[in-house]
Structures are given as C-alpha cells and as structure tokens.
C-alpha cells in the first residue's frame, strides 16, 4: 500500500496488506453492484446509451478529490506524502490509445475485467488472460521498448503546474466538469431511451 497511512508508519507491512485486501474486496463489491461487471453496460457508454460508467467514475473522482483537498486543508492529511505517478507524455499517450481501443472492443477495463471474471463471465476471463499475457510480453521485450517507455519524461507533473493556478481552482473546474457532465449524461440517456422506444 502506498501513502499516507503506510508512509507515516501507522501500519506495519502485514497490516497494510490486510487493509489493501479489505479495500480491494470493497472495491470489487461496489464495482459489481454498480453493474460494472457487465461488458454490455460498459460498452453502452460508447454508443451513448448508458453513461453509468462516466457517472460512477466522476462521482468517485469528485468525492475523493474534495476529500483529499479539504482533509489536506484541515491538516489531517499530509499531501506531500501522497504518491503521484509520473508523467511520460508520448508513451502514456500511446498507452492510452491502446487502452481505449481495448476498452471499446472488450467492453471491459482492468478492474471490471477482474470483477467480470470473478462472477464467471467468460469474456471477463478472456480479458484477464489477455491483459496478463500483454504484461508478460511487454516485460520480456522491455529492453527493446525502454527507450520509448522512458521518453518525454516530465517527472511528477500536475494540472496546477501546467496551468499555473492554485490546486483549488483545478478542484472547482473538475467539480463543474463533473456536475455539468452528469446533467449532459442524463439528457443523452433520456434522448437515447426516447429514440429506442419509438
């Protein structure tokens, strides 16, 4: 587990593994209960039929973001200890495109494919097997990919740094994006339900 509890020494390594297991079970449970184990539901967002994925994602993002911001502001959470993944522009762009293609074709992403596999869906199992084979193959050919993999490195690079604004401004922008997106999503869903019933 990464920051902040493990970093601040609150948990031992074993305890942090136990906590990670609990969080993982909880995560899987809620993914499944919100219908994310179904490739049909996930693919629905690409046809603008069902934007549940978008809504669930943005609800999670906004909740976590506001929580992190205000807990940091109140001094409960040390934001400097939170792990921020680094940026490699081109390789991540390429990875994102590949990921998007895979997502649209299979109708599953890494987390939901595990959920789908756990509930016995064959397509979920196929995606999980494919995903780990891909990881293995990448690992085997890593020396050939390393140059590209490590190119256009920007280190830890965040939106406030990119736009030269305070973190709070980004928080507001993402909240507005989320709330606006929610409205739009409901509208699109209503319209799509209207056309399909005609």
């Amino acid at each position, binding site marked *: 587990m990464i920051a902040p509890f493990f*970093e601040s020494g609150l948990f031992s390594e074993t305890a942090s593994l136990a906590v990670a297991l609990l969080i993982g079970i909880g995560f899987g449970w809620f993914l499944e209960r919100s219908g994310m184990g179904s490739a049909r539901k996930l693919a629905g967002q690409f046809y603008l039929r069902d934007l549940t994925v978008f809504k669930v994602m943005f609800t999670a993002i906004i909740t976590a973001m506001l929580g992190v911001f205000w807990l940091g502001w109140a001094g409960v959470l040390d934001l*400097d200890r939170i792990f921020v993944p680094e940026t490699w522009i081109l390789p991540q762009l390429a990875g994102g495109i590949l990921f998007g293609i895979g997502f649209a074709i299979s109708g599953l992403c890494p987390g939901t494919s595990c959920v789908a596999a756990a509930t016995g869906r064959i397509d979920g199992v196929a995606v999980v097997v494919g995903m780990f084979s891909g990881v293995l193959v990448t690992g085997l050919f890593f020396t050939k990919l390393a140059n590209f993999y490590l190119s256009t490195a920007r*280190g830890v690079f965040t939106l406030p740094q990119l736009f030269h604004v305070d*973190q709070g401004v980004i*928080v507001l922008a*993402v*909240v507005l994006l989320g*709330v606006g997106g929610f409205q739009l999503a409901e509208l699109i869903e209503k319209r799509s339900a209207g056309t399909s019933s005609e």
Partner: protein
Amino acid sequence: MIRASAVRLLAIGATSLGVLAAVAGSPRKDSSPSIDVAALARDVQTEADHVTAIELARWIRDRKPNLRIIDIRDSAEFARYHVPQAERLPIEEVVKASFNPGETIVLYSGGGAHAAQAWVLLRTRGEKNVFFLRGGVSEWLDEVMNPQAPAHLSGQARDEADSVAALSRYFGGVPRQVDSAVPIQSFKAATARVRGRGC
C-alpha cells in the same frame, strides 16, 4: 423524486465545496520553504552531500528502492555514455521537477561542479534526500568501469579491491591489477582525460 432531490443536494454540496476550494487556493498550509543554511553547511562539512561512484554502483546493483539517478548533461553527452538507469533532465528542469517523498535523488554531471550546484538548488527548495556524484561521469568511468588496484595487496585492502572488481564486472567494467611502481598512463592521455571532463 426522493432520488432526484438527493442527487441535486449532492451536486449542490459538491459545487459549493468546489467553489470554496477555489477560494481557499492551496490545501497546504505553508508552502514557502525556509532555507536552513547551517544544515546545508553541516552536510557539506560531514560529506553527507555526495556519494562516491562506488557507493552509487552498489546502490544500483543492490536495487536500492526509489533510487533516481539524474544526468544533467546535454543530450549528446548522455547519448554517448550515461550511468545505467540514469534519466536525463537538464538543470533548469531539475529545479522545477517535483519528486516523490521517499525518493533518493542522485545528480551527476561530467565532473562534479554542475551537479553540486544543482544539489544546492534542490536542497534550498526543500528536497532532503539529494546527493551528487562527487566526481561525475569521470569518476564513474575511472572507479567503476576501469578500476585499477595494485597487484600486491593483502588483508582488508585486498578484500576491498576484490569487491570493487566484482562490482565493476557487474557493470561490464574491466578491472585491472597494476604494478604500482609503473605510471598508469602516459601524460598525454591523462591530460586528454582531464580536458574532456568539463563540468
């Protein structure tokens, strides 16, 4: 209807917290780092500011967790040769980059001067786990890739020389045993080497 009003309430709540966040600005209480010049001086005095090439090589070999090796030379020099696992980041990028807590940063340049300057800049910016490679790439080439030890050693000195030789071979280096009475290199070669050093 209950669901719709609950959703509306959540949306209003999130939006107000977002607006307040924009007003609050930064979630960090005090972000201006204070410079403890005495602590910097102490680290220089106790030599806690740098690593030797051998130490760095051991860190790499032993896979020291969260180690980041940063080459601040230009891309041509980096392409010609760099320390394994190093990433290139020009000095003006280094001072702007943010590092994760827990990362050990080792800076190096051709000689030692530029990396030492980058070290000071990063320390004044508040980074704690920063080191520079004392003699830069030159030291790496001399001490790790081409170490020379006198042929007639015994005891602890022998063990140390053997350990360095093993380390060198790990990195594909060529450790040599020399007769210490004979001058190692010609004057011309030595001068050329020093000239190539730069900063």
